[in-house]
């Protein structure tokens, strides 16, 4: 764990340098703990770090680091809350890029769908837009790069894939991810870092 001063009122706390479930657990645990630290303006957890914005009339650049370290050591014993399990029905017949993903990985479309639904994914970060949860890790058998030219409009509810990550578009947006299917799921505010997401194939 180490700190980096980012701005006059923000410090970045790093828990590792590479994306892994172990680092995610550290981020999730520390994020849960830091919610009870006072005089904090905003917390932005991500894959390996938490951005902490604080009140400069209460902490200075040194005391914020001491207070965070002390707070985390005091709350370390709190058992890590198991992330929720969220099941999401997906209509893979709407997968505009299933053929692209299949071709890229020398698989059939059915095999791509089987691979995508064969495991659960964890929420590593939320951002890009409200409710956009970055889910990982996509099995290497179906990892596929982003489209060379992003689409001007990816419809809300699109289930998509980019390399090691998969996600659901919470609203219409431009985007370059490979679209695998569509879901009517609409509870995007419920995603929290650490949750487990499972995609369910509904057209059998």
């Amino acid at each position, binding site marked *: 764990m180490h700190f*980096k*001063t*980012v*701005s*006059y*009122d*923000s410090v*970045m706390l790093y828990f590792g*340098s*590479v*994306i892994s479930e172990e680092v995610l657990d550290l981020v999730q645990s520390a*994020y849960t703990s830091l919610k009870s630290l006072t005089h904090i*303006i*905003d*917390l*932005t*957890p*991500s*894959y*390996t*770090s*938490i*951005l902490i*914005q604080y009140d*400069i*009339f209460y902490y*200075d*650049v040194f005391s914020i680091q001491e207070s965070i370290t002390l707070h985390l050591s005091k709350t370390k014993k709190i058992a890590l809350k198991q992330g929720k399990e969220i099941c999401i029905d997906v209509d893979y017949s709407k997968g505009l890029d299933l053929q692209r993903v299949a071709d890229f990985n020398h698989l059939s479309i059915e095999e791509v769908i089987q691979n995508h639904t064969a495991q659960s994914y964890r929420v590593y*970060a*939320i*951002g*890009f*837009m*409200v*409710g*956009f949860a*970055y889910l990982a890790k996509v099995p290497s058998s179906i990892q596929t790069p982003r489209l060379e030219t992003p689409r001007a409009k990816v419809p809300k509810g699109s289930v998509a894939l980019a390399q090691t990550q998969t996600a659901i578009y919470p609203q219409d947006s431009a985007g370059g991810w490979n679209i695998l299917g569509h879901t009517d799921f609409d509870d995007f*505010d419920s995603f*929290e*870092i650490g949750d487990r997401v499972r995609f369910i194939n509904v057209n059998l």
Partner: protein
Amino acid sequence: MLIFEVLTPGALTSVQDLGRYGYAHLGVSQTGAMDEYAYRWTQKLLGNTEGNALEILLSGLKLKVLNPCTIAVCGADLGFCINGQKTNIWCTHHIHKGDILSFEKNVSGLRAYLAVKGGFSLEKIQGSYAYSAKENKGLKVEKGTLLTYTESQTRDLRRVQKVHIPLYSKVLSLNILLAPNASSDILENSYTLSPNISAMGYKLQGKPLTSSKGGIVSEGIAFGSVQVPPDGQPIILLKERQSIGGYENVGTVLAKDCFALAQAPIGATVTFKAIEIEEAQEEMKDFYNFFD
């Protein structure tokens, strides 16, 4: 009670406040007034607490006054007129039913703030009035929009002392807190503000900086963060920035310099000078203490 009917909305007129805090973990953008200096002056002049203001981007806005009120206008000189008469800004005015308020001409700066005593009556969303285009939150005015308020006018009039009124320059020197281990090349170059400037961020043009081609592991983005995408042209991320991102960060522009930047036009010249964290905190404490 009704206060204004919008006759013409101008380029982009929206209600802003100091922004939306405590929801970054959901991907919510902080947003808020781009030039907090001018915004805070409108609130100080009117004695508003937890208020709001119209953020007026460039000239074109025309309002019909439906009830008497005290207003304050600060920020860019967009040719503010009451009933067609050019009128001072950085001060309060008593306005009357039937008056026409208009912003006729772009003289200097980009964003003016118009606040009413007591603030406009609106629902807060996630603790804030701030308009966000990309999140479809808050209010952007259209032709015919009716704005409401609760309080009546004050008796006194107030104005900002001349020494506190900024001159909006086309040459800016921004204080930057360099990231540890980041190259200091940015201090050596001179940049031009590209046409690609929005509430999300201002893209600069100049000698390209070297950037790590693959980017970094995505992480939270602070206000004023200077990011370097693969093309090497830095972007200063501002109020409506995304909550997390994966471009390399070379430093962060001091917040009050970002407020000045919000008034700078396309083509302005931008250079950077390094500041240390202790000095940055002192400067911002002075800034906030001034308005308290």
